[in-house]
């Protein structure tokens, strides 16, 4: 019994010592990967000079090393406002989650030492096998996650990229991870409108400005083109519904996060009190669909689109009766974009041509092929295209 | 050492269970609370043990009112021996007895060597030391009752309260337990037991308190209480009380059986 008390006391002491040790040590950890790659000792300030000087005044702080102007590092301020010291030449990177993965894959596939999530099996026929079979490290959720930190260190990236919507607490979480692993974790903001900007930032970060410019241009051009076409359409904007679920009775409502793309290319007829931000949207019923009376219906690739033609119930909808509906393409991901990513750009192009064939008179195949070449680094054969858009 | 109950009243909500109970129990005496089921014997005991505090009247142990005493100081004066039971967790007989010493050790510590030897002594005193390392739930009902008595003894309280100690026991074990109680009485303890068996109350007690409907029907020496008249009134049945062995034993027989002979 007494020994337990002593043990508990020792535990407290031990933890205190550890914390003290940690507080002294963390400052030294950033940018160790560089040293790991090159030679460890000589690049640092020589050992003998640092030893006697700092001891009396600030003992808990690491010795203030006179940092010579190193030409091989740069300062970089990310979108959370954190300034990090990075190697000037970056060749190895890792990503924090699926959205980062797809964005970064488009720009710098050869730099990825690993991915966070397995690629969709459907992507295997399109992607270069070298990229498809990258090691999987797991995904970060906030400050923790499946991402195995030791595995990350073993993979040896020079930085970890977190691309997506900014989260309030992201800065502190990423700081903690940077401090813990010694690998800089960098956040870049991105959503449908700002994807182009995100690519430029990534380009300057990774030294791939030219390539990034091409991607950014593509994103911005597509977006601008969509707006231009919609201007031509003018008052002819069509009243749309995007239906999903195994009964086709889930709808992406106006004002929801996932509805952005629908509002860009038409008028989303689904007005509900509480637009769900979920990928599965709001539940609805046929009566409500009749009330909304859309001019055009888009079905999710895994919904009832193929069966409605023979269904008397669905036939009551004008749009179905008159054949004004389509099934959204899928390959290698859903073009309507869940989660919202670069996949939305061919999605926008397809939607425009499906809805307004007169104004959107481009060759969709070559547009989509260009997207595949730019973002997926592969050529889309006409057969593959047929299978996707069908 | 004596325990004195004066005008004790207690009710659960509107229904009164105890309606002015008064009696005394002296040290060196075995006092039996006699009465049919449901007359308030258990409620009376819960008041005596300080488990119920919202009663009217007073309970004093050696002149000190028990109502305001902490559980711990009351435990040093009054020990309780429940009917033998199965606890949720199985403990060794020795540990079970050791728990009786709890009021002697401080809140944050465990019993020490002194308490341990006291527990062994108590087990020896009631004659079940050989069961020491057995699991409490693995011994017989009579043995369990003796273990509980040993537990009350290490509590070092002068007053022992037993709740129908011989209920659920076979005859041999009943006798063993009653013998043990008699020894304790002789050693100077104030022993109070509840029972619904008038013959046993007569045979072993120094004093019998007959309770009916929350009141004391009669209090006094067994020979004065265990009478035909009182027993008939107490149990609401026509009973003959026969005296045997120079009135050392009284037997209660239903009159219908007795008359048929």
């Amino acid at each position: 019994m007494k020994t337990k008390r002593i043990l508990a006391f020792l535990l407290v002491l031990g933890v205190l010592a550890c914390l003290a040790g940690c507080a002294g040590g963390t400052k030294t950890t950033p940018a160790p990967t560089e040293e790991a790659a090159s030679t460890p000792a000589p690049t640092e300030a020589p050992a003998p000079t640092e030893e006697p000087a700092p001891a009396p005044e600030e003992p808990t702080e690491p010795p203030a090393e006179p940092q010579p102007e190193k030409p091989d590092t740069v300062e970089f301020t990310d979108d959370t406002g954190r300034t990090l010291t990075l190697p000037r030449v970056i060749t190895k990177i890792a990503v924090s989650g699926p959205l980062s993965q797809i964005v970064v894959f488009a720009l710098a596939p050869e730099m990825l030492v690993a991915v966070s999530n397995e690629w969709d099996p459907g992507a295997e026929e399109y992607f270069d096998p070298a990229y498809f079979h990258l090691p999987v490290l797991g995904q970060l959720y906030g400050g923790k996650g499946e991402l195995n930190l030791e595995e990350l260190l073993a993979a040896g990236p020079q930085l970890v990229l977190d691309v997506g919507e900014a989260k309030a607490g992201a800065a502190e979480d990423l700081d903690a991870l940077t401090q813990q692993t010694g690998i800089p974790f960098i956040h870049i903001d991105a959503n449908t409108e700002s994807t182009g900007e995100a690519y430029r930032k990534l380009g300057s970060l990774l030294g791939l400005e030219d390539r990034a410019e091409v991607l950014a241009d593509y994103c911005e051009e597509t977006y601008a083109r969509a707006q231009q076409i919609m201007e031509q359409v003018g008052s002819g904007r069509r009243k749309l519904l995007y239906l999903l679920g195994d009964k086709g009775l889930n709808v992406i409502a106006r004002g929801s996060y996932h509805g952005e793309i629908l509002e860009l290319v038409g008028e989303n007829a689904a007005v509900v009190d509480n637009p769900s931000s979920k990928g599965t949207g709001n539940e609805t019923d046929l009566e409500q669909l009749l009330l909304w009376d859309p001019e055009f219906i888009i079905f999710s690739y895994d919904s009832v689109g193929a069966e409605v033609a023979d269904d008397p119930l669905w036939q009551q909808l004008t749009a179905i009766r008159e054949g004004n509906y389509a099934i959204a393409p899928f390959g290698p991901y859903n073009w309507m974009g869940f989660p919202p990513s670069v996949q939305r750009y061919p999605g926008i192009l397809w939607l425009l041509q499906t809805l307004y064939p007169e104004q959107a008179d481009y060759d969709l195949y070559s547009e989509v092929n260009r997207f595949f070449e730019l973002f997926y680094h592969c050529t889309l054969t006409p057969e593959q295209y047929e299978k996707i858009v069908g | 050492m004596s325990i004195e109950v004066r005008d004790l009243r207690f009710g659960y909500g509107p229904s009164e269970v105890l309606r002015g109970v008064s009696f005394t129990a002296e040290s060196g005496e075995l006092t039996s609370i006699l009465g049919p089921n449901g007359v308030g014997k258990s409620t009376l005991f819960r008041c005596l043990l300080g488990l119920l505090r919202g009663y009217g009247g007073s309970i004093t142990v050696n002149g000190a009112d028990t109502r305001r005493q902490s559980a711990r100081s009351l435990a040093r004066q009054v020990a309780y021996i429940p009917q033998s039971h199965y606890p949720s967790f199985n403990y060794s007989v020795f540990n079970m007895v050791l728990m009786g010493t709890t009021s002697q050790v401080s809140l944050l510590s465990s019993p020490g060597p002194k308490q341990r030897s006291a527990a062994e002594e108590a087990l020896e005193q009631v004659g079940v030391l050989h069961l020491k390392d057995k699991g409490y739930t693995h011994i017989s009902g009579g043995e369990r009752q003796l273990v509980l008595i040993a537990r009350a003894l290490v509590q070092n309280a002068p007053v022992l309260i037993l709740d129908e100690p011989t209920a659920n026991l076979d005859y041999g074990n009943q006798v063993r337990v009653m013998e043990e109680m008699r020894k304790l009485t002789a050693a100077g303890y104030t022993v109070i037991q509840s029972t619904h068996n008038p013959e046993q109350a007569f045979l072993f007690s120094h004093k019998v308190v007959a309770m009916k409907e929350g009141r004391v029907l009669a209090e006094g020496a067994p020979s004065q209480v265990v009478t035909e008249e009182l027993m008939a009134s107490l149990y609401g049945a026509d009973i003959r009380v026969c005296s045997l062995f120079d009135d050392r034993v009284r037997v209660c027989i239903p009159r219908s059986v007795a008359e048929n002979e």
Partner: protein
Amino acid sequence: MEKPRRGGLTLCVMGVLLIVLIFVSFLLGRYPVSPGPLLGVCLHKLLRGLGGLLAPVFPAAGSWGITPFWDGNMEAVAWNIRLPRILLSCLVGCCLSTAGASYQGVFQNPMASPDLLGATNGAAFGAALAILLGGNSRIITLSAFCFSILTVAAAFLISRVAGGKRVLTLVLAGIMVGSLFSAGTSFIKLVADPSNQLPEITYWLMGSLSGARWNEVGLAVIPMLIGLLPLLLLRWRVNVLTLGDDEARTMGVNAGRVRLLVILCATLITAASVAVSGMIGWVGLVIPHLSRKLVGNDYRYLMPASMLFGAAFLLAVDDVSRNLMALEIPIGILTAFVGAPFFIWLITRKGDAF
């Protein structure tokens, strides 16, 4: 059945096993580091830490340390990743198991576990809420901790108002408040953004020790020790309490007060554990039972045995969770895989299971 003499020896063996396991765990990891640098880093850090503490009185201590013969990655792995995680898994395992043993004692119910009064449901709600509002890890942890305590406090107050059989109303109130909060969690999951918040909430609910850091250990260890120490000292009273309130009172134990104290401490350590680790089930039920098999029901041995065994168990499971695959397996899933079959075995077993 009961062998008190052997209890002390069993505890010693468990303690030694735990220490061995800690060393083994330290050597295990996806990043290959040989024992030399591992120990070097730790020794260096401890010397530095100790030196830092002593420096004001003993200036030479400030320069204590070992000249590094390892690179930065090894240092990060040994000191920033592996060690805090090992400590945290030991602490969490110890706390959950101790809380379970304590709850079982004061509720006289061998099936009680740390979430009996809704502590884990409350924590889940707190975490989900913090994630929904965009908090960082520290805010999520704090929110989980506060809501966990709040849930148990609410259950306790409700049972006070309700009256009746205290233990029963307390358990019922715990179940009610707990289910209220889990309904709240479900609602938050419904409204959470599915592209980033929802997976984060789901992941949190599965329980994980990944990303364990020193400041997390530092944050958790204080309430944990504040709760563990009284539980360890009160263990004899818990023994008496298992006999029921009335008997305990007649033996001089103020049952209500001791139970309140034990619940308070057990809740504190449960809340602290769940807040840093997420929902890790079964440890609080299974480990106390296994400990009962080893040292019996006597809390003088059961309490420390649960502590040691809990720490060792969660450490071992966490070793699996971080080493089995390239990506982390949420530890809550693994403990359920071990715990559920054990529980089935426990309830189908005939004879003196309890």
